[in-house]
């Protein structure tokens, strides 16, 4: 259990490149924090700075109130699971799991008890005598986790631990990690570029881009109340539809005009846009594919021809070519549709997100 605070942390390399720019983050005891973002956003660097594997160029890092910028990794009492597992190839599974305890000079019988206990909890008992080269990807992943768990560390750091597994195994291991978190009841910091992992595992998600934190929130808020266009587009699959619209006043009411039609606004959104002086100006609007619905031609904000129809069982994804570009709809209506068929869609007004087209910051959710 640990409380970790990052205070104005910056990572600058010798060539002047800033991988992490002045970030602030507070991680409370028992939180499952996810650092998520596209490649090169600085999430792994941030994790490695917490681990002590990367020097901190500027700022302060606190672990349980103690500044640990200059504390070497072996003295931080933090365990880490690496993307490529990093198992010691010359040691058996047993020796791999036991290594940290051996370093701590834990008595042999206690090491044995704890290794067997950990192995049993991860289904590794049968594999204890094998070398890593004889294990499958999923098994290696479990050994890597066992190696971290056995120490009872203050916090677990995981650097894209599932990215080397196939889709099915990844789903399975995701559930196991969630289960582990419930059982261990300790602080987890998890790096991923997969937003499904982020949304399903995290209690707090930190979205990063270009070395800066974009938003810190819980999964629900992140999904429903993104602070900018990047977060809105990054979270959710299929990604949010973005389109340009004009705020126009018709019969005393403000609405958004698209190329194909218009979108009514909720009173709250209307008021916010009016207050901020957006009347008569262009905005960027966003709507998630699942928040689009079929409608009549008169009500339609988007009219288009179906280019791709994907039936996923309980739902279907429709890709339609509209005047505003490609619009993606995720619908429960699983009636098979033909390529080229015309569809009329409108957003659910309360789910519409409106962004400033220049700063890309949210105006109203």
């Amino acid at each position, binding site marked *: 259990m640990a409380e970790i605070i990052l205070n104005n942390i910056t990572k600058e390399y010798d060539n002047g490149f800033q991988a992490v720019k002045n970030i602030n983050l507070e991680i409370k005891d028992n939180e499952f924090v996810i650092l998520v973002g596209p490649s090169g956003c600085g999430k792994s660097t941030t994790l490695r700075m917490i681990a002590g*594997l990367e020097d901190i160029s500027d700022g302060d890092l606190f672990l349980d109130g103690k500044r640990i910028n200059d504390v*070497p990794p*072996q003295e931080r009492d933090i365990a*880490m699971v690496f993307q*490529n597992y990093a198992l*010691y190839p010359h040691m058996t599974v047993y020796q791999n799991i036991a*290594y940290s305890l051996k370093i*701590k000079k834990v008595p042999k019988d206690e090491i044995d008890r704890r290794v067997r206990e950990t192995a049993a909890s991860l289904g590794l008992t049968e594999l204890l005598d094998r070398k890593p080269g004889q294990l499958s990807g999923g098994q290696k992943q479990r050994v890597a986790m066992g*190696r971290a768990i056995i120490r009872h560390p203050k916090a677990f750091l995981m650097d894209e631990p599932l990215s080397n597994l196939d889709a099915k195994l990844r789903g399975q291991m995701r559930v196991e990690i969630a289960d582990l978190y419930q059982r261990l009841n300790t602080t987890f910091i998890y790096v991923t570029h997969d937003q499904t992992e982020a949304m399903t595992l995290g209690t707090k998600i930190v979205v990063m881009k270009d070395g800066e934190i974009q938003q810190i929130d819980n999964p629900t808020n992140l999904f429903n109340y993104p602070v900018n266009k990047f977060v809105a587009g990054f979270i959710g699959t299929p990604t949010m539809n973005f389109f340009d619209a004009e705020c126009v006043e018709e019969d005393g009411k403000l609405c958004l005009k698209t190329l194909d039609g218009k979108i009514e606004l909720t009173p709250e959104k209307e008021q916010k846009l009016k207050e901020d002086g957006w009347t008569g100006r262009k905005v960027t609007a966003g709507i998630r594919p699942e928040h689009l619905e079929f409608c009549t031609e008169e009500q339609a904000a988007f009219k288009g021809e179906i280019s791709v129809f994907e039936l996923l069982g309980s739902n279907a994804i429709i890709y339609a070519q509209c005047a505003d570009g490609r619009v993606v709809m995720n619908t429960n209506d699983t009636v098979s549709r033909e390529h080229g068929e015309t569809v009329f869609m409108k957003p659910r007004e309360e789910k519409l997100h409106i962004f400033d087209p220049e700063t890309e910051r949210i105006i109203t959710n």
Partner: protein
Amino acid sequence: MNTHYKDNRSLPVRILSVLGKVLILGTAGIFTAFPFIWMIVSSLKTKADILNTDIFFPTDPQWSNIASIIFRSPIPRYIFNSAWVSLVIVGLQIITGAMLAYALVFLKFRTNKLLFGIVMGTYMLPVAATYIPSYIILADWHMLDSFRGLIISSTVSIFGIFLLRQGFMQIPKGLVEAARMDGASHWRALWEIVCPMTKASFITFGLMNFISTYNNYMWPSLITKSSEYFLVSQGLRAFFIRDGAYGTEWALVMAASAVVVVPLLVLFAFTQKWFINGIGGETGIKG
């Protein structure tokens, strides 16, 4: 993975090709091994036979030549000197070489590349150019004509640093980082994670430097004068000219040379698998 190619050539061509290979390799092999075989057969000849070019194999093997070297000459003493001095030197070279190679490969510091450049630069320096400064330093430290001087002056091997660095570079950095996260210091990570994974490099380095130190002649003969500190090459030379017997005791000189080589042959027999592996550039890590 073994790949089998189908040989489409006709039978006579194939036979000729194999014969050609055998002939070339056989000749090269004989040329390489001939001095050694000559030394062995000469060590069993009589004083008269040895200068008779008509006789290659001894007519009456003189086993007493070998016995007199082992029991009645200072050669075993020189072998012992060479063996333990080489062992200590190689041990020290492994420790210093591994530490520097680890720093060059796994530690991040500003002058990393510069340091490696300097280390490699000294490798370009002719060894003879270092004799005089090294001699003066040892003289100042009062270490001339002693085992201490011999050992201290050879604690670092540039070749070893280079060889180990190349081996260490094959190891994913994540393994050392994982060890650090597991609580290992750099020292532990080096000996418990990196070293076992680059065993072949260590053995190759150890064996090659053991052989060269064991056989070393020039430097030891510059700094040691007393026969009690002689290594084998100096010892052989001293034995050769003993009592003014310049070139008169060829059979005994050959027997002494043969005895001197035995420890190296035994060592090679035990380590050749690793030795060849290490020379071939493979570090023993299987993917």
